[in-house]
C-alpha cells in the first residue's frame, strides 16, 4: 500500500492520460459509429457499401494494426501529431466499427411500422432516422454500447506501446525500477482498471434507467 501511495502521482497521471484517451475516443466512436450505422441502413447503395466495407475491415483486423496505421503509416505521409492524438484517432476508428454494429442491431429492433408511419406522414429518410428511429434504436443499444465502451477502455492499454503514458504503461515503467513490488503493482493497477469499468457500467445503467419510456 505504502509503495502505491509513494508513487500515486505517477499512477494517477497515467490513469488520467488513459481517461483522456478513452473519453475522446468514446465521443468520436459513438458519433462516427452511429453515422456508419445510418449509412448501412440508408437507401443509397454506395453509402451502404462504404459502411459495410469500413466495418468489415476494422472489426476483422487487430487493434495493434490500427494503431500502427496511425502512428507509423500516416505520419510517414508527412502528418505530425502527439502520440496521444494518434492514439485517440486509432482507438476511435477501431471502436466506431463496434459501435456501428451495436447501433445497427438497435435500429433493426425498432418495428418496421415506425419507419413506415414516419414516411407516410411526410418525413424524409433523415428526419425519420433522427426523430423516430434513432431515439428508439439508441435506447435499445444502451446495454451493448456499455459493453463496447468497457472493451474500449481495456483496449486503450494498447496505446502504452505507442508512446502514450497510460495506466498499463505506468505499470511497465514502475516494474522496471521496482521488480520486487510486482504483486502490489499488479493488484493496484488492476483495481484501478476495475474501478473505471464499474464506473462505466454504473453510468450506462443510469442512462438505461432514466432513458426508458413507458
Amino acid at each position: 500500500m505504502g509503495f502505491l501511495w509513494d508513487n500515486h502521482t505517477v499512477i494517477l497521471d497515467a490513469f488520467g492520460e488513459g481517461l483522456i484517451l478513452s473519453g475522446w475516443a468514446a465521443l468520436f466512436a459513438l458519433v462516427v459509429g452511429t453515422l456508419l450505422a445510418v449509412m448501412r441502413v440508408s437507401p443509397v447503395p454506395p453509402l451502404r457499401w462504404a459502411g459495410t466495407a469500413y466495418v468489415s475491415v476494422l472489426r476483422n483486423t487487430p487493434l495493434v494494426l490500427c494503431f500502427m496505421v496511425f502512428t507509423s503509416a500516416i505520419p510517414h505521409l508527412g502528418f505530425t501529431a502527439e502520440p496521444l492524438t494518434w492514439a485517440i484517432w486509432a482507438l476511435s476508428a477501431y471502436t466506431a466499427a463496434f459501435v456501428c454494429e451495436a447501433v445497427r442491431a438497435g435500429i433493426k429492433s425498432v418495428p418496421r411500422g415506425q419507419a413506415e408511419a414516419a414516411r407516410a406522414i411526410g418525413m424524409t429518410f433523415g428526419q425519420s432516422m433522427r426523430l423516430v428511429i434513432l431515439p428508439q434504436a439508441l435506447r435499445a443499444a444502451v446495454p451493448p454500447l456499455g459493453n463496447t465502451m468497457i472493451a474500449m477502455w481495456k483496449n486503450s492499454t494498447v496505446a502504452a506501446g505507442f508512446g502514450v503514458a497510460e495506466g498499463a504503461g505506468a505499470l511497465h515503467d514502475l516494474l522496471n525500477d521496482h521488480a520486487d513490488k510486482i504483486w502490489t503493482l499488479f493488484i493496484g493497477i488492476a483495481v484501478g482498471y476495475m474501478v473505471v469499468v464499474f464506473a462505466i457500467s454504473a453510468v450506462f445503467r443510469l442512462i438505461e434507467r432514466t432513458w426508458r419510456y413507458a
Partner: protein
Amino acid sequence: MTLPAAAPDDRAAAPAAPAGTPQPLVVLSGVNKHYGDLHVLRDIDLTVHKGEVVVLLGPSGSGKSTLCRTVNRLETIDGGTITIDGVPLPEEGRALARLRSEVGMVFQSFNLFAHKTALENVVLAQVKVRKRSKEEAHAKARALLERVGLAAHAGKYPAQLSGGQQQRVAIARALAMEPKLMLFDEPTSALDPETVSEVLDVIRALAADGMTMIVVTHEMGFARSAADRVVFMADGVLVEESAPEDFFTAPSSERARDFLAKVLHH
C-alpha cells in the same frame, strides 16, 4: 378590390363545372404490380372523387393493402399511373415526402411513435414537416385529441393506451397534417371487439365532415352504412364497384357472392 389569387385546388373547378359534379381526387389507371412472380395488382382502374368514401373489400391476399399503399407510394408500381389532384405521384425525394404529408394513413397496427406521448405524436410532423410553430402545433394537437375523445390522455405514451385509444391518436396524428385524403388499412382489425366501434365512430364522423377516404375493412356493417361506394377485389383484380346497398343485396359477380356468403354467415 383585388381578385383573390387562384388557389391550386381551383383548377379542377375552373370552367363552370356545375355544382355537385364529382371532381376526381385520386385516379389510378392501368396500375400493375408484381412481387416476384406474383401479380398482385392487375390493370387497376379506380377513381376516387372529392368527399367520397370508398370501401375496399375482398378476401385475404387479394391485394387490398397493396393497392391502398400504392396511393402514397409506400409501395411502388410496375406499370400504369396514379395521380392525386391531377398531379402524378412523385418518384422519390422531397416531392414525394411533401405529397405523403398531404395523404393521411392509418395502419392496422397503429404505429404510433413509441417514444413520444400522444400529444407529441400529433405535434411532431406538424413542426418538423409542416414547419408550424410549436404553439400552433400544440393548440391543433389538443383540439384534435379533444375531437377524438382523448384530451385526458394527451400525456400518455402509446404503451399506456388501449388499442382503440392508440388508433384514435393515430387518426388525430394524420388529421393534424390537414390531408386531402385519408387511407385506412384495416384500422380496426387489431382491436378488441368492444373497442372497434369507438374507432369506427371517429371515422364515420370524418366521413360526415366530407373527408375523402379509402377504407380497407372487414367490418361489413361499417361498409354498408358509411361507404358511398364499395369496391370489391379478388386476386389483384377489381371485380365489382357498386353502391353499398346494391353490393350487399345483389352482388353481380360470383366471387363477391362467395365472399359475402362467407363473411356474413360467419
